[in-house]
């Protein structure tokens, strides 16, 4: 194709449109949450006590910090500070990994107590608990999946900055990657209170 001049605005527009689809993807699950929370308000309240608020809070803060680091990388790349940019992206990835490790232990503890979809123990607790934990695992699981994708995306960003494909005058891709990461953070901002703080 002949040279089409670069369209950063179009690229950003495309990325935002994709983010909108993700909001609606999780939106379907929020609809489900709204319905079942309404129908089983007491059971949800009690089931929420099984979740570990301190770990959830720490994880929330971890994600917030990671959002700040990747946001700052946009400033640093525009200032031409390549090393700082790389450090900020790397920090974001490390924080993401820590989040996943915490999740791994959280879920592990649940499984050990027989709390997982389809378990006889969970079924014995009643409808509200089944639905609460079903939603909990499905939504945090889908979220964790998006974190894994996010880590891969950030990895690519790190690489592109390293090889100077992303530069102070050509960084829309990094901005797009950061937008994706903020989305992951946004979703968790809602997941946290809806599951952990309704006890």
């Amino acid at each position: 194709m002949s040279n089409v001049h670069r369209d950063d605005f179009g690229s950003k527009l495309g990325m935002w449109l994709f983010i909108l689809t993700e909001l609606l993807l999780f939106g379907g699950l929020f609809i489900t949450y709204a319905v079942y929370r309404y129908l089983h308000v007491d059971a949800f309240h009690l089931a929420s006590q099984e979740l570990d608020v301190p770990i959830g809070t720490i994880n929330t803060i971890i994600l917030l910090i990671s959002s700040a680091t990747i946001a700052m990388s946009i400033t640093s790349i525009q200032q031409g500070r390549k090393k700082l940019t790389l450090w900020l992206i790397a920090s974001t990835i490390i924080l993401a990994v820590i989040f996943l490790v915490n999740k791994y232990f959280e879920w592990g503890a649940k499984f050990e107590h027989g709390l997982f979809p389809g378990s006889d123990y969970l079924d014995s607790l009643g409808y509200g608990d089944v639905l609460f934990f079903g939603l909990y695992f499905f939504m945090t699981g889908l979220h964790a999946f998006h974190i894994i994708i996010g880590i891969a995306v950030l990895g690519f960003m790190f690489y592109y900055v390293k090889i100077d494909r992303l530069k102070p005058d050509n960084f829309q891709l990094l901005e797009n990657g950061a937008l994706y990461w903020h989305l992951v953070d946004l979703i968790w901002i809602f997941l946290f209170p809806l599951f952990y703080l309704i006890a």
Partner: protein
Amino acid sequence: MDNTSQENYLEYRGRFKGLMGWLTSTDHKRIGLMYMYAIMFFFIIAAILGLLMRIEKIAPGQTIMDAQTYNGVFTIHGIIMIFIIVIPGLAAVFGNFFLPIMIGAKDVAFPKLNLLSWYIYVAGSILVVASLFAGGGPPDTGWTFYAPYSFKTGTNMLPAVLGAFVLGFSSILTGLNFIVTIHRLRAPGMSWMKMPVFPWTLYGTAWIQLLATPIVGITLLMVIGERVFNIGFFDPAKGGDPILYQHLFWIYSHPAVYIMILPAMGAISEIIPTFSRKTLFGYKAVVFSTLAIAFVGYFVWGHHMFTSGMSGTALFTFSILTFLVAIPSAIKVFNWVSTMHQGSISTDVPFLWAASFIFVFMIGGLTGLVLGALATNVHVHDTAFVVGHFHFIVFGGTGFAFFGALHYWFPKIYGRMYDRTWARTGWLIFFIGFIALYGPMFYLGMTGMPRRYFDYLPEYHGPNILSTFGALIMVTGFVIIVVNLFKSAKSGKKAEMNPWGGTNLEWQVPSPPPLENFDEIPTIDKATYKYE
């Protein structure tokens, strides 16, 4: 004007030649055609399934298949027709081919993403067709995958549901691509209100593709979760609500029908002014009704669920909104007819399709009102009436518009003209067969024949015979049409740049268009559709 320094897109040879040249091409025109060929291939599979259904139903009792097989046949027929044919439909084929040209651009905003969307489409389609074979046999839930049966049935749900999920991605990415294309790549001088109607309908469609599809995506994912992990979202035995599944499913699947019909209406809005030699009546009304349909269409999904057990408040809300959404569609019909009024009508092939579109679409639409009214819905829900309704409005609507668009834009796409007499003959036979096939279903439904049953009471025999014969006639017409087009693509008479006297940009580039559409991006100074 005719001389261009570029080769046309069909002859162009990049890094690869032959088939590989097409499979690696990011040229929107080639991608559009690849969608068309894939759609035709899968359409034939689904049409054969439909024909088998009609043969089974030529008489009561088992004719050629048992009940379980019939359930599988209508399920796959539906899945293919909906997710693989009409949802991609005109947007994937004619949108891809003509959107850039009609707005004065060289290609879409993200050409590589465009090619990827096609591959995703093919992958999803293969998964769906694969579910026909092996394992527990084809899914038997209907294309609507209602829970809890969809996760309890022993049939091949996983490939079918996964296939639909994958197809959703193709739809989303195409929508994304078109939105950015229309926002960013319109030629200088082409303001929003100078953009032709077909791109406008693609714009509305793209937003629906973008915003509604993720919801069915997550719903299908939840069904897979139910099937594999026994989560309980829709399982009454675990506290889940099957009606919630229906809500989530139709929150997408109703807007999906607007994905099907909006580009179709756009194509009709292109054909009618050209063959009336008259400016489109009420351009602004057509644009705003397009956006209104896209918008209001989000809020009517419950009319598929009137008998499910929803609350009275929900019933009332959905019924009123359904009547509301009919209004912008009706506005369009007035606009088309008003365009024809006192115009200089040429009843050439595309016009025949457009005019018959209006006829069948209206029948489909009006019967939709019967379904949208609560009291009458109870009587006809889940009967053959519904089957008649949606075939008139979807097959009649999107299908007729597809054929119309194909016969309209064929000379531009292939640089050749088809045999008009055979085309007219094919149209007439198809049209007659169509009415005979689907018309009786309204009567059958109103007198009580259920849908999705492989058998029926003897009192329904007569109309069913008519319906089956209609199918055979329609298929004959279809074969004539397709053979004519195939032969003409290869060896038809060479077509000129503007054989119909159209006014939009696609008629100002050579037939077939050069690789990058324009030697120079045009500047737009006059309004569209202007006939002096």
